[in-house]
Structure formats: C-alpha cells, structure tokens
C-alpha cells in the first residue's frame, strides 16, 4: 500500500523534525492548560460546593448587609425576619476561616443548635452540639485530616472544644468544615451580637405562583421591611460572594499569565520553524501552493501543538486537582471533579492559543516571495 500524505500528516512531520523543541513547546502549553484546568476548575468547584451547601440545607435566601462576605449585621434583626409572612425560618450564622494547625485551616460555621441547616447533616458518630457549650462538629474529611473522633478535644485559637460529633454534609465545604454554636464563634471572632448573615428558608410558594416570581416577591418584601439589608437568592450568593469572586479572579489571572507564556512559546516555535523552512515554503509556492494553503499548513502546525499540549494539560490539571483534593491543607475546599464543559473549554482555549500564536508566523510565511524564499540558505 502506497504511503498516503495528508495535510495534517504533513503538518505533523514538520513539527516532529525538531522533536525536542516541539516537546518543550508542548510542555509549555500543557502547563498553561493544566494551570487553567486546575485553577479555574478549583474555583468553579468551590462555587459549585457552595451552591450544594445551600441546596442541601434548603436555604432560599441569604440576608446580608452588603453583597460581600466580610459583612456583619445585628443579630437582633432575626425576630423581625421571622415575623415576615413569607419566611418559614430565618437563622443567623457566622462564617470564618480559621487556622486549626500550622498546616490545616478550615471553614468554620457558627449555627444555632436548632438551626434547620443542621437537619441536612448526617451525624455519622456522636451527637449535635448544644448552644453555649464549647462543642463542635467536624466534617468527616476534616476529622480524618486532624485524626479526631467524637469525644476528642480540639484547640481553636486558644479555646478548647470537645468534638461531639462527626458529620457527613452535602458539600465538600461542610465535609471539610468545623460547625460550632453561634455564640462560640461570635466569641472567637469578636462578633458578639453580630452575625455574618441570616439564612432564610421560605414558606412554600402559593399555588399558581411561579417559584422565580415568588422568590423575587419575597426578596422585595424582606428588603422593604428591613431597609439597608439585601436578600440574595442562594444561587446568586454562591456565585457572587467575595471568596468565590476572589477565587475566580485569582484562577483566571494566573491562568491567563500561564496561557500567555504558552502562546509565546508556540509563537516562538512557529517563527523559528518558518525561518528555518523559508526555502521549503518557496518550494511549496513553486509547486503551486496558494498563500492560503501555506498559511493553513503553518496554522495547522500551531493548532496541533496547541491541541496536543491541551490534551497533555488536561491530564496535568486533573492530576493537580486530585492532588489538591488529597492534601490536608486544601482537601476541605477542593473537589477533584471536573465538568466536561470545563474540559471542552480548556481544549477550546488550547486551539485558540495555537491559532493566535501561529497567526503572525503563518502570515509571514505565506507572504514570502517564492523567488526570494528559494534563494534562502
């Protein structure tokens, strides 16, 4: 069978002639795509886990003073909220991020012992905490990382707490968290009389009223009754809070820098390749190749580089996420799962990176004069 030459095969042979350079370029773009998959994946997983936490507890609205997390409002607002007709339950909560050991920090939630949010947790050993007592529940991942079980004690910021139970929550944010009585966390955080937010579970929507419409009506009713406060739907709170936004910004910022380096790597490789192959491009033009065909060949090479690097990067990113999900320092806030859409997005970015990086070398190669190119040494 005669060997068939395809356009893509030709492009691949051109890349493979400089194996080391090609492999190094692949590594560069793989690291960039890996960083994107890991960092953006991490920040999206973080947002997703946040939403799962709200959904599993049945929280419909979060009541905050501002739209950011570093907010506090008076705990005394609670009775007014609970008196509103649309509100089934409004429960205060305090949220913090605390160093438990030099290596391990964890999200800490302060809830009332009778909060509906505790109902969504499965206590796998021990019992619930009691208000006013130095007692805590540990998420099962955190308990494993700290090697604690029910009955043990844990020192948090100079105070000793008894681990009264281990819980299995609906979200990684709970599985890696400490949950303690609201008053205890208020004391630790110097927030006596203040709370981070109220989580509200609404009464069922009246028959015939759409859920979205009901949610908007409830928001308006709460904000009218309590001027200066914001009632934010849980889904919006999950995606639009300060920690998630910071995580997204850091992930995209770092990934963008890595991608820029990857693009420059491909561009450099393609520019070198076009320079070295000037005469060959002249030969192609002499053999009847159009400018557009030469451009397509060079762009194909750049895209093949980007795509191959992209696939490698998917592996790098996924491996990194798995590693982060296994490390005690990050296990509480990282999920190893990556959505297919995110992977497709990464591959799309890899292809676009190749196209962008190859554009100028391709244009330059295609516009070489055939005669000048053939004379090139």
């Amino acid at each position, binding site marked *: 069978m005669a*060997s*068939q030459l*395809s356009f893509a095969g030709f492009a691949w*042979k051109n890349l493979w*002639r400089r194996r080391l350079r090609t492999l190094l370029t692949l590594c560069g773009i793989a690291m960039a795509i890996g960083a994107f998959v890991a960092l953006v994946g991490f920040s999206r997983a973080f947002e997703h886990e946040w939403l799962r936490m709200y959904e599993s507890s049945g929280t419909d609205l979060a009541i905050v003073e501002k739209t950011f997390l570093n907010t506090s409002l008076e705990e005394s607002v609670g009775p007014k909220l609970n008196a509103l007709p649309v509100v089934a339950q409004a429960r205060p909560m305090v949220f913090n991020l605390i160093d438990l050991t030099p290596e391990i920090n964890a999200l800490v939630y302060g809830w009332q012992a009778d909060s509906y949010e505790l109902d969504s947790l499965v206590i796998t050993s021990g019992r619930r905490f009691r208000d006013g007592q130095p007692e805590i529940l540990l998420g099962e991942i955190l308990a494993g990382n700290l090697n604690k079980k029910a009955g043990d004690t844990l020192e948090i910021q100079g105070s000793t707490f008894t681990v009264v139970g281990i819980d299995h929550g609906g979200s990684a944010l709970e599985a890696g968290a400490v949950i303690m009585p609201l008053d205890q966390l208020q004391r630790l955080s110097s927030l006596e009389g203040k709370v981070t937010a109220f989580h509200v579970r609404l009464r069922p929507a009246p028959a015939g009223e759409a859920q979205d419409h009901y949610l908007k009506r409830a928001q308006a009713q709460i904000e009218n009754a309590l001027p200066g406060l914001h009632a934010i739907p849980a889904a919006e709170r999950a995606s639009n809070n300060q920690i998630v936004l910071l995580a997204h910004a850091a992930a995209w910022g770092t990934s963008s820098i890595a991608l820029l380096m990857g693009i420059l790597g491909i561009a450099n490789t393609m520019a070198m390749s076009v320079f070295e192959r000037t005469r060959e491009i002249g030969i*192609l033009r*002499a053999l*009847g*190749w*159009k400018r557009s065909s030469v451009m397509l060949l060079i762009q194909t090479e750049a895209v093949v580089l980007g795509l191959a690097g992209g696939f490698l990067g998917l592996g790098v990113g996924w491996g990194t996420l798995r590693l982060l999900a296994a490390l005690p320092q990050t296990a509480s806030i990282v999920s190893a799962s990556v959505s297919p859409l995110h992977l497709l997005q990464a591959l799309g970015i890899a292809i676009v990176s190749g196209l962008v990086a190859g554009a100028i070398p391709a244009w330059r190669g295609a516009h070489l004069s055939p005669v000048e190119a053939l004379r090139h040494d």
Partner: protein
Amino acid sequence: MRSLCKSYDEGRIEALRGVDLCIAEGEYLAITGASGSGKSTLLQLLGGLDIPTSGEVLFQNAALGAAVGLDAYRAHKVGFIFQAFYLLPTLRAIENVQVPMLAVSESARNRAERAEGLLCEMGLKDRLNQYPNELSAGERQRVAIARALANDPAILLADEPTGNLDSVNSARIMEMLIGIHQRRGMTLVVVTHENEIANAAPRHIRIRDGRIAS
C-alpha cells in the same frame, strides 16, 4: 513573452531587458547563458514564480497574473525541476511527489497511487519509501521529475537539472526528460550551462546581458 523586463534593487540591476520570445506548445527549448545573464530570471517569469517589471508573459494568449492566476498556473500548468532538487527532507520519496497534489483537490488514495505510478515510471519502484538523504543524487532528481509531473502540467521547466549530477546520471536525466517531452507532448524548457545538452535541443537560445543574443 512580450517586451519582458525585470529589474531589481529599484532598477539598478536589470536582469532582463525587453525579451520577446514565443514558445510553441510541445516544443523543446534550451536556454544557455553565462552566470548572471538572466536565464534563470527568464525561467522564473515563465514559470509564474515572479512578475515582470514591465512586459507580459502570455500562456495560450492569456496574460499571467491578470487573466491567469499565478498560483493556479503553477499548480496546474507548470512543473519545476531545480538543480538542487529541493525535495522536502521530512517526507519519503512517494510523499514528496504527492506535495503538489495537495494544492489541488484529489483524494488521498488517488494522490498516493498517482505518485507511485510516476516513481515507477522513473525507475524508482524500490525506492518509494526512502527519505531524500537515503537516495543518490540521480535518484533525488528522478523523484523531483516525478514531482514536477504530479499534476500533469503542460510545461516542464528545468533549471540546470544536471548541474549536481555526474555525467552518467546527467545523461540519464536528460534522456528521461526528453522521453517525457516526446511521450506526453509536453513543452520542455531547459536552462543549462552545458553546450552538449543545449545543442541536442531542437531550438536553443542564448541570453546575454538580459537579452536574447541568438
């Protein structure tokens, strides 16, 4: 070719100075001249690799670059053979022959079969899968001839086709080119330094200082 002029370096170097030349379909023409006389420039203009400063090249009464697109002309009407072979080093012999066919729409299978047939015609049946650096100079030039024939052109343009070959291979290559010209009725234009080759052609012109001297 009508009043063909080609100058470089903003007119300071005049490679061709008003060349008029008519080449009949199916003709075999040899072009000789000293280095720098303009013979290669003439071949480049004839092959649509470059455009004249003034004057025009007509192919079947249509002006190149205006009525006939240069890319399409090079792809379909002209086959080039170079002194230095100019095979692509990363491709096997049979793949090199397929390169011009990538510029025209044809199936991969047809391309490969046609390339194999051309290489067999050049006596390279056993060398299909060799890379250029695994071939002798004579074999490389035969691959280059097969490549020039890939899209079944009307004109074969050979620029010093035997310049890098010994006398035995030179004779064999010229025999092949003349055989192709005769069998296929292709127009053959050979630029050469060698009087023996030039004198064997039915028509022979000499270029001197950018003009046809005889």
